[in-house]
């Protein structure tokens, strides 16, 4: 089979797979344009009969979307920052050595993310209340959620650091780097792919964070989009298409950014052989 044909066949398969996989996403967009009741139509409507564009107008008016997304960005960035800052160093050390201490640390890190946020939030809330951290609710949320993402980040980055040949770091040391310098200038860039992807996953996670924000952030003005969205979930009235429109509004730009970024990252250079 010639290269061009293989290429086209693969592309076709990829598109087909993507189409199947992305169907739920499509459903989100379609639903956001349906009426309240046509969501439940039998047989299902694959294209909204009469697209309800004003679903978008409505949520834009009712929900303060820019503010919500702004808060989400603040929380996601904060979480990513703390996680990456504290986590990557730890991951690096855990990748670099092999001994009992390291095993214990690795074990601890993994264990510490065992509980789901819904079970962690009560003690955290109580603790934060007693030290006054609730005065800074977004910061408190960032602190709490970073502890949730950190183990995840550490474990993944550790795998990334495993792929950086030790000798490159040694070369840097001889070239005059301190350990810190070699870490930042040689090891980090070489483990870049894994790190960035992990950080991006953390960011996404922070962007959709719900449980901690919901409990810790009392002030509406500081709440993230994940909470803004659930305000359409009322006891008897559930404004599904508004929720879908809301979700579409805040998922789409992030998804686009992600598609663009991951391409750079996963395809970036790899360390490869030394010699």
């Amino acid at each position: 089979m010639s290269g061009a044909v293989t290429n086209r066949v693969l592309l076709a398969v990829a598109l087909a797979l993507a189409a199947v996989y992305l169907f739920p996403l499509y459903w989100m967009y379609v639903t956001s344009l349906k009426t309240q009741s046509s969501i439940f139509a039998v047989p299902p409507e694959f294209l909204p009969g009469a697209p309800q564009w004003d679903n978008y107008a409505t949520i834009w008016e009712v929900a303060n979307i820019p503010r919500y997304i702004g808060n989400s960005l603040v929380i996601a960035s904060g979480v990513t920052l703390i996680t990456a800052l504290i986590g990557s160093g730890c991951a690096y050390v855990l990748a670099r050595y092999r001994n009992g201490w390291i095993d214990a640390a690795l074990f601890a890190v993994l264990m510490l993310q065992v509980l789901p946020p819904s079970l962690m939030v009560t003690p955290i809330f109580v603790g934060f209340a007693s030290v006054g951290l609730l005065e800074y609710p977004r910061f408190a949320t960032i602190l709490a959620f970073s502890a949730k993402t950190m183990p995840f980040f550490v474990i993944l980055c550790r795998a990334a650091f495993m792929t950086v040949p030790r000798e490159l770091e040694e070369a840097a040391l001889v070239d005059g780097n301190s350990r810190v310098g070699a870490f930042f200038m040689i090891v980090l860039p070489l483990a870049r792919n894994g790190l960035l992807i992990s950080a991006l996953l953390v960011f996404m996670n922070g962007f959709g964070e719900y449980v901690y924000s919901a409990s810790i952030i009392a002030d509406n003005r500081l709440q993230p989009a994940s909470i803004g969205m659930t305000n359409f979930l009322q006891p008897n009235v559930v404004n599904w298409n508004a929720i879908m429109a809301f979700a579409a509004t805040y998922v789409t730009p992030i998804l686009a950014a992600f598609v663009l970024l991951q391409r750079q990252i996963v395809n970036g250079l790899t360390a490869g052989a030394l010699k």
Partner: protein
Amino acid sequence: MTRILRSLRDGIGFDVMLVIIALSYLLVFAGLPLIYNVIISFQTVDVFSLGTLWHPNAGFDNYRAIFDDPLAGRVLWQTIVFTLGSVALQFTLGFALALFFHQNFTGATWIRGLFLAAWVMPGLVVGVLWNWLLSGDFGVINHLLESFGLIEDPVFWRSNVETSLYAVLIANIWYGTPFNMILLAVGLAAIPGDLYEAAELDGANAFQRFWTITLPMMRATIGAVLALGIIFTLQQFDLFAAITQGGPAGSSTVAQYWSWQLSFREFDFGRGAVISVLMIIVVLFVSLIYVRSTKAETQL
């Protein structure tokens, strides 16, 4: 003092410091809550005394109550099915996709990016979407299956005690696959190309290269992805809340959902904590296995 500083910059102190910082952070923000949960599993926790640390001692009453609960056995089994099923299929599909997109064809990287959509979507939205997709009457999945002639009558995925767990399982597989895929893709990209060249010259076909080069070289990544996959699956909550609420008749209740129900629906925090303690024990084993598996990793 200068000695310590020097060690921080150039010596083992640097390593120790990095680990200590992260570990202490985790111990404060994740370790203490965890201990709190363990403690209250031995206490009678009143809804209004949640805020204090000391509650009436309950000994093993909560544990007894959980083990005596007729639901316990089913929840255990359902949790196992859900967790293993999710992880196995997410991993397999994720790996297959990662390998597929590892081939160099036009658009591979773009399309792969689209697969990450699931990861970006809030759990609640994913739950709602699958709730609709899997719905018996107006669900698209039934509609498509019927129009392809694969089924006669609609399957009530969510409402049949036989299928409700699988309904959530399907949604969870969809949700978790991209996470597996992207991390495995990064791991794949980090394998030096000349190893494949050498293996090809040694006569390895694609399948053999996969088994003898790719898999062992990706040990670190695979171990991490699997361990995290199990832990994440054990925390999956949104999908249950949105699709089945653990029902009908408890047929899709898993440990984490039960724990949440006990704590926040029945306000029996002690018993809720018992389940989380049991989950901690499970994760303990997962962690041990993971830590052991790192012995076989390859550092380049």
